[in-house]
């Protein structure tokens, strides 16, 4: 079962996303800001991370940059789910590998479709990795 980490400072968002993703057959873990997410990553290896940008402590941008630059052992994909529509966020995120940018409000159904598609695309590599 694929493990997804949701990082968002809005409890309602985490609550509703978790409900939907669990229903879709994923295991879901949660963090309320970047620092909590990094603490989680020290112990766990998720298959995908969904993160907001505007968060206290460590924001989504800092979190993504840290993961891609420092925690290179983590190869999971990142879905940025944010209400921030500024161009600069699209720009920095497009410079990172395996990062998708989704702008709120987003339909949960579409999000689940995107997640499923992501895992479909990355399936062979995952198998190859397991085999190796």
């Amino acid at each position, binding site marked *: 079962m694929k493990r997804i980490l949701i990082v968002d400072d809005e409890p309602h968002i985490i609550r*509703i996303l978790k409900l939907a993703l669990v*229903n879709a057959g994923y295991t879901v873990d949660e963090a309320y800001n970047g620092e909590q997410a990094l603490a989680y990553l020290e112990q766990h290896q998720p298959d995908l991370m969904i993160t907001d940008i505007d968060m206290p402590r460590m924001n989504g941008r800092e979190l993504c940059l840290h993961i891609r630059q420092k925690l290179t052992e983590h190869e999971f994909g990142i879905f940025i789910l944010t209400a921030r529509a500024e161009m600069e966020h699209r720009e920095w995120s497009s410079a990172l590998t395996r990062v998708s940018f989704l702008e709120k409000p987003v339909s949960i159904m579409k999000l689940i479709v995107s997640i499923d598609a992501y895992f479909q695309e990355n399936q062979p590599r995952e198998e190859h990795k397991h085999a190796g």
Partner: protein
Amino acid sequence: MRLNKVFSAWNKERLGLTMIIASLAVIAVTVFLLFFYQQKNEIAHIRDQGTNLARVLSRLPYEQLVPDQGQQSALSVLKHGYTDTDFAYLTVVDTSGRPLTEISSPGVIVPRAPLPSDPTSWLGERDLSLGSSGRVVHEFHAPVFDTGRIAGHIRLGYFSPGFGLKPGQIPYFATFALLIFLLTPIFYFLLRREIRPLQQVNSQMDILIEKAHLAKVEVAATGELREFMDRFGQVIDSARTRIQQLETDHSGLVTTTKLIDYKRTRIESVLHSLPDSIMVLDESGSVGMLNAKLAALLGVRPAEVLGKKPLEWCKDQNIVEFLAGYAGKSFRSFSTDSIEFSPADAPEKTIVVTPYPLFSPKTASQLLGTLVLFRDISAEKVARQSSGEFIAHVAHELKTPLNIIAMYSETLQSEAGRTEEFMIEAANVIHDESERVSMLINNILNITKIEMGSMGIERKRVKLRDLLEDAFKDCARVGKSENLEFRLDLPRELSAVAADKELLRIAINNLLTNAIKYNRAGGTVELAAEETATSVLIHIRDNGVGITAEEQERIFDKFYRSERDDIRAKSGHGLGLSLAREIILLHHGSLEVTSKPGEGTEFTIEITKESDLLQQAV
């Protein structure tokens, strides 16, 4: 002083004195010439007489000259008939010089003197000195013959005319001197009469020079002088007219200069008072003028850069290159493109430099120079940036609750949302988030109105006690479920304030809502009021999570939210306190905060009492 007087007297009477000296000189010369002439005449007379007499006597027979005893000599006859005062002596001497006979003036001794032996020198004349008196005698001598042989010589002596006046000459010379001396004053007065008009002119000219005032010189004169004075008067008249004209021109020029000076000062003061910094470059690209603001902006002194090209003083290379392009530009090639730069010593500033062509007022196509405008757009840039940030914040804050509502409603429509438990949760969440959106929109509208100055504040007499009680009741009802203790501590009498009731209510509500929201289980929320002599103080206290010192500096900023988890766990959009403070400031009041993390927070509103406002207004 005395010497000056002497000089001035000399100057005045110079003519008279000169005349006297001149007449004396003329007298002396005339007398000398007359005297000289008489002397010469006399000598000629003596020679004439002497020579003739000597010859006549020489022809007389010897016997007549030297008669025998008892006979009368021709000489003695001559002596009686000859009374010339110049006559000294007459003697006949033999060839050895011994006198044979002689006659002489009284007291005269005939000097002994040898006679020439050479026959060619027998007839002649010579000067001899009389030994006794020292007088000089002019002697004529001639031979005397006796029967064809030389028998002796005749010597005839006359006194040489002496240097000095003879008594008989004195009246003659005195008459001449008197005549000349009498003519002198006549000449003097005649001359004076002729000169007087000139002197008058002279003294009047002194007055002209001293008083520097040109007036016609009035002089009683006749003839050529009259004509000269008339011409001179015309010259003075024309000079006076010319001077008057020059004076008029001068006063006109002074007025014009003053006017130009005033206009220049006015233009300069306008240029110096302009909110923007400006510089004028002449055709060669040198600085013709710059105002104090620009000097301060570029860190130069106006006097140091005037007449110099930017290359010589401007530190910013971009500006130098940019302005160098405007030296000697023609009207056609003039570009009004502008550039932006940040001064080296104020990199946070953004200055836009825009050139404008300065056209000649007479020939529109002729370029007189360039007006360069330096405009500080830092504030505009910040405002643009912050308004952009504000909009981004608003969009984000609106999207977040809308996103939650959308997700919950979407889930409600799906299989997963069909449980009763979820439906209740969804209903609550959607209600709360809708409230959040609505409150956010209200706050944004109010803040924007206040900031843009379009919020019409309706100040009326507000019974503060009623308003505080109402606000407290509302908040206690809403917070009933929060397990908090609510306290209201108002004095029995509370002065009225002049305020916009609705706005003041929003400010107090926002503070009370925060006191509830950021409290802790079993905490208290207290609303208290007190009065000072001039104002009313409203305290909103809680013993909740508190605010750190760093946070206190930012809590009134729009959209500021603490990074702390316990605060982030509560929904909020960071506008409540900002709006509350804007409202209190709009009432000329103040909103202060004191807080300790973990112990609680107290907000204090201070508003001036209505009576004091009235007094201030009076």
